[in-house]
């Protein structure tokens, strides 16, 4: 791929991704009554909790086996078992996820063996402990996320009777986005199992009786029956096969798989709705046709303003793809695409268009900034870390994705479906407008005012 910049750097300067276990925590937060423990030093889980708490504005409880020096030298088995004991006691969860930090991986901890032994020793063989090896040095949080989803299914799914449900696998999107996808499914009258569903758990309504484990999340029984579903829709065309939960269900249980992009933008949402129609044989309700029409209206209203946009799109591959498509549909020129993950096959994804795109993988913000300057970028679309581009280059930022930590409401940002796309597009257009309106007087003056006395 001629446009792909191969990354041989020795130092990351202002990272564009997080580490693998953080991505692995998120799906466990979308399961009914579940807890997670990180096998490694205490600090890792504290950092990740802090990072996630800022985005979701929800308490994020994650245990740690709190490995110390001794555990590091002689193995941390006892710490992990004790950690599990304590979590069971305080939280009484229905499932526990065990993730590793880079430390546990480096000293060669075998979490599969330890967890098997643990269940035997405690005589609770049926209890679902889901292990996910997430060495921070091998992949980014994106891969950690999908691996966790896959391992959850692998552990729970059983050969089950055929049913009418459709499995929906979603990438790391906002709780508001998940709710919108559920609304679409319900509007189409489709029975579904959506995984992971952190729409309630990570954006819980205020109630006067707070529980340690929030309500909501995908039901474990539903996950067990995923192999009996009619089909799987995986909103993850950038996910590699070996990490793909949908591929696993297809290969092991023959569940037909539809891999679709995130439904952001007109075409991507069409694809989602049409696929639902194909699978279920149900008609698309009038309501969605109207929403679609409003989106078209919105696209027309804004197209000339949007034509001024030269964008950098950054973040997780799946989101970068969907957002870039949306830009292209609306005449915004996405010049720079950037992700901290190494898995982003832009050539395959964008076909001919890809020759106009500068794609940076495994990149960092110092690099992104430099390329944005070269390409005259005037609009950034991505998570809060992009505030660096605003501060240093004055490029305005439209916030979407994870993490949103410098504004409230990361959990409430809605961008999927026709309705979500309308809101997303308005955010983009208004950002461009605000930028233009606050600059045009002075810039026109500088450009054209020649003074009264021309000498």
């Amino acid at each position, binding site marked *: 791929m001629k446009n792909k910049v191969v990354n041989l*750097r*020795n*130092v*990351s*300067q*202002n*990272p564009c991704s997080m*580490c*693998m276990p*953080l991505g692995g925590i998120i799906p466990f937060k979308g399961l009914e009554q579940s807890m997670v*423990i990180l096998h*490694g*030093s*205490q*600090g*890792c*889980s*504290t*950092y*990740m*909790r*802090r*990072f996630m708490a*800022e985005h*979701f*504005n*929800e*308490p*994020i409880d994650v*245990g*740690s*086996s*709190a490995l*110390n*020096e001794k*555990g*590091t030298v002689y193995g941390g088995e006892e710490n992990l078992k*004790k*950690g*599990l004991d*304590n*979590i069971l*006691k*305080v*939280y009484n969860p229905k499932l526990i996820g065990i993730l590793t*930090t*880079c*430390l546990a991986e*480096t*000293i060669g901890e075998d979490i599969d063996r330890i967890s098997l032994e643990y269940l035997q020793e405690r005589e609770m063989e049926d209890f679902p402990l889901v292990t996910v090896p997430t*060495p*921070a*040095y091998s992949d980014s949080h994106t891969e950690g996320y999908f691996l966790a989803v896959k391992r959850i299914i692998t552990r729970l799914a059983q050969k089950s009777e055929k049913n009418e449900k459709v499995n929906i696998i979603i990438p790391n999107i906002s709780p508001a986005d998940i709710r919108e996808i559920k609304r679409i499914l319900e509007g189409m009258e489709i029975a579904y199992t959506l995984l992971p569903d952190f729409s309630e758990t990570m954006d*819980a309504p*205020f109630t*006067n009786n*707070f529980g*340690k484990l929030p309500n909501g999340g995908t039901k474990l029984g539903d996950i067990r029956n995923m192999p009996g579903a009619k089909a799987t829709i995986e909103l993850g065309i950038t996910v590699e096969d070996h990490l793909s939960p949908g591929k696993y269900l297809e290969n092991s249980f023959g569940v037909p798989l539809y891999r679709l992009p995130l439904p952001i933008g007109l075409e991507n949402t069409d694809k989602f709705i049409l696929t639902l129609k194909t699978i279920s044989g149900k008609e698309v309700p009038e309501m969605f046709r109207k929403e679609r029409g409003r989106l078209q209206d919105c696209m027309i209203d804004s197209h000339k303003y949007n034509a001024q946009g030269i964008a950098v799109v950054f973040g997780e591959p799946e989101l970068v793809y969907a957002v870039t498509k949306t830009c292209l549909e609306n005449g915004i020129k996405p010049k720079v695409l950037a992700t*901290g993950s190494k898995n982003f096959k832009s050539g395959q994804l964008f076909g001919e268009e890809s020759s106009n795109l500068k794609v940076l993988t495994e990149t960092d913000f110092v690099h992104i900034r430099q390329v944005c300057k070269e390409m005259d970028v005037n609009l950034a679309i991505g998570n809060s870390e992009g505030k*660096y581009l605003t501060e240093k280059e004055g490029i305005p930022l439209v916030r979407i994705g994870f993490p949103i930590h410098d504004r409230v409401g990361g959990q409430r940002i809605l961008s999927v479906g026709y309705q979500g796309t309308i809101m997303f597009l308005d955010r983009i257009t208004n950002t461009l407008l605000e930028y233009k309106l606050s600059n045009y007087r002075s810039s026109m003056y500088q450009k054209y005012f020649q003074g009264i006395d021309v000498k």
Partner: protein
Amino acid sequence: MAVMERKFIEERMESINIKGKKKKHLKCESESLAGCVSQRACVYCGARVVLNPITDAVHLVHGPIGCASYTWDIRGSLSSGSELYRNSFSTDLKENDVIFGGEKKLSRAIDELVLKYHPQLIFVYSTCIVGVIGDDIEAVCKAAARKHNIEIYPVQSSGFIGNKAAGYKAACEAVLKLIKPGVHLPEKKNKCINYLGDFNLAGEAWIITHYFKQIGIDVNVTFTGDASFTKLKKAIEASLNIVQCAGSMFYLAQEIEKKYNIPYLNVSFLGLEDTAQSLRKVAAYFNDPDLMERTENLIKNEIEKYGPQIAGYREKLTGKKAAVYVGGGFKAISLIKQFRELGIDVVMVGTQTGRKEEYAEIEDLVDDGTVVLDDANPAELEEFMLLKGAHLLVGGVKERPLAYKLGVAFIDHNHDRKHPLSGFVGALNFAKEVYSTVCSPVWQYVHGEGLLHEK
């Protein structure tokens, strides 16, 4: 106590005390229990907190990307000069580095950063796996320092070797090496002090420095708020050290006294009372009547300026109850006193890394019935806040959503804050913030039944 038996882990009982007639020694300064969901941060975090405010240094994290991602420009320390410290540099170790060692990558990373940013000073932080894969960062730093003719200090901050307090110590060790003079000890300057334990969050160190300037005392260098390589090199010209955040700086003050014969005084600039007392204490040390008079004048003016407004808030806040959960004991003690100035009772107080002496002082300060706890977890915080009927929690980012979910007011008292809480003006800001959260109208709408519930 029935509540405690229900949800709590027995071993944790030794770290929880309810002040009463019987004196009990609280278990503290020990390792976190596995699976307890401790709120503690790690060694690297402690080290980074202390060193990060040194503005013109390159702060390079040696390890996989995560640690650097979670600490990129998240602190509110301000600079009057270089902005270099606001970058997050990491060697971003990958699988191959873990197998073959990361020393070469580290030295290439240093080369690259020196070439690009021309720093005089680099800190290299080792994170969890560095020791395990056998990298000798001392040797790499030494060689690189010689090569580039600059100063490079390794900071031993692998997460598993202890907690945040161990990181403070590692940071202080690095600082001690940095301030070490050449063969000749410089002359001491009279009425010239170093200010230890202020990280210039939202300009706090500037506020305090300005007080001293007004009364005729020079602040030589602050450790480490808005410090720079050149300023730190002159550290031992001061004739007195004053120490605020004892948790991180006590050790440094002791070592400097031992090595360079600079005595130190403990101070606190949190709250009107403490600020006034601390200024008096420092003035008295120099034993100069004019200086004392200027100090009294300053105190009088400032208290006249802010006292009445604070009294206004006190009127509205009297009788409210606060819960405190912060990093160190010093801060907890200051907060108890500061709440007292506002007529608020502290009903629960805990810290992540408080020391024995500090807990003894806390026990002396608080009323009977107050819960004192070390290294608490969310379950305990929840239980005791509810049990004691706290109206307000003071804590960091991770604790905020918990307070809000419980419908309790919240004060951010950590390194992310964006407004100063130090000095006389800080006391007013604090009162204002407490008022804005405790007396917010929103609580009326979230507690109780509301219109929807009316029959």
